[in-house]
């Protein structure tokens, strides 16, 4: 009886020691694979057609409100970002139109406008920083490029636009049930 117990225990110890999944060195291998990937945010200012704003607005009148409709070249803009946001100066800096404004009054460049959006949309902040919200291209093990929020979401009309899909595959000649079973 004692022999069996000794045999059983020694077999257990042998299998545990030889089991490669319990090897500690696999954890160290994963650590050494951590490659620092740099992330570059595409500068938004390059895509603004009317930048810098102060070229036209060099004399800022002291206004508390901006009346709609706006004059040229801003006359084609639509405003559909929450019904109760009517004050442009909530996001735009009143004295320097080249900058944006955070809630606490500090100014912000258009290149970092995502920080303005994250003030209200905090649930997207971590996702965007980890690269899983929005398109991120480049190299999966190297430099990655991503955009600010406004590349896809027009800040004054932020709903993601409907698109036209590419054409469907050709339906086979003898096929049945073209649109699914139901």
């Amino acid at each position, binding site marked *: 009886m004692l022999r069996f117990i000794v045999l059983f225990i020694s077999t257990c110890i042998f299998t545990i020691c030889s089991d490669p999944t319990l090897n500690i060195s696999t954890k160290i*291998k*994963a650590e050494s*694979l*951590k*490659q*620092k*990937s740099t992330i570059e945010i595409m500068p938004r200012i390059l895509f603004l057609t009317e930048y810098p704003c102060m070229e036209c607005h060099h004399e800022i009148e002291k206004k508390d409100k901006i009346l709609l409709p706006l004059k040229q070249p801003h006359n084609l803009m639509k405003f559909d970002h929450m019904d109760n946001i009517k004050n442009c100066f909530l996001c735009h800096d009143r004295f320097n139109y080249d900058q944006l404004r955070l809630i606490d009054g500090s100014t912000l460049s258009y290149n970092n406008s995502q920080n303005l959006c994250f003030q209200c949309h905090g649930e997207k902040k971590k*996702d965007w920083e*980890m*690269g*899983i*919200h*929005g*398109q*991120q*291209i*480049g*190299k*999966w*093990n*190297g430099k990655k490029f991503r955009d600010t929020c406004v590349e*896809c979401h027009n800040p004054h009309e932020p709903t*993601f636009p*409907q*698109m*036209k*899909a*590419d*054409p*469907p*595959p*050709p*339906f086979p000649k003898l096929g049945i049930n*073209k*649109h*699914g*079973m*139901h």
Partner: protein
Amino acid sequence: MNYNKNKNIQKTMNLILDKTTTRRQTLKGFAALSIGMTSIIVGNSPIVKSGFMDNFFNKHYKEMTNDYKKKLFKKLIKNTYTEYGVNISISDPQPIKGVRFAYCLNLSKCNGSRRCVTACVKENNQSRNPAIQYIKVLEMNMGSINLEAGDMYYEGKSVPNKNKFYLPVQCHHCYNAPCVTVCPVEATWVQEDGICVIDYEWCIGCRYCMAACPYGARRFNFKRPSIPRSKINPNQGFLSNIIRSAGVVEKCHFCLHRTRNGEYPACLEACPTGARKFGNLNDPDSEVSYIISKKRVFVLKEELNTIPSFFYYFD
């Protein structure tokens, strides 16, 4: 009279060959002569000269040495040039050590634009007529994950359509792939970084793998693939996007000629909403590791125990 005729033929044969022959031997001689002449004619015909039968004597990819691969790639490059007039380059990137690829797809973001399908076809030299597309985008009703009820032929004038969500399906590169188990000639296998590859020159076209795949990910070349000359992608990988012949099975291969060099697959770069994420599961900083640890991911047909590398989630 017939008997005399045959005897005359035999007499002439005896005179020609300078020895006595029997009727049986004469017939054998005629048969051998006819076989020889047919083989000379067939060997010089344009079908064989175009290299149609060349890959009959190829080795399996796993047995190829580097020298053999170089010669084979040169031959393939030459064949493509003769046929299409396009200079291509064939690479053979090996799996990177310690990398295990995974793909994550955000179903809340996919709007059914099918840009991934078009980009894949462009990148991977797929046949345009008959059209082969590795990715199927299924339009599903909200509230069900019944793949058989998905509609892949939806018209997308303005996507996303109301009350529908979109599920793109491609090869899942399963850890426990049923297609690998059933292949009778081992033309398909899973490499160390998780990508399931096909040796197109070795595949015999029996389509057992197509029957075995539960996701309907594999496509067959019923006819010779036709690709317009201007649309050929010249950056080719031997196991990924060389121009295939008729009678072989093909499927998504995670663009291994791109991903093994660090780039993203073509479908990911084309996605307009950023629903697709790809990376190395073993890297804790990668997007896919973050998604799998923080989001509620699921796989399709989990009960079949295929253990796919393709994960879906709703945000």
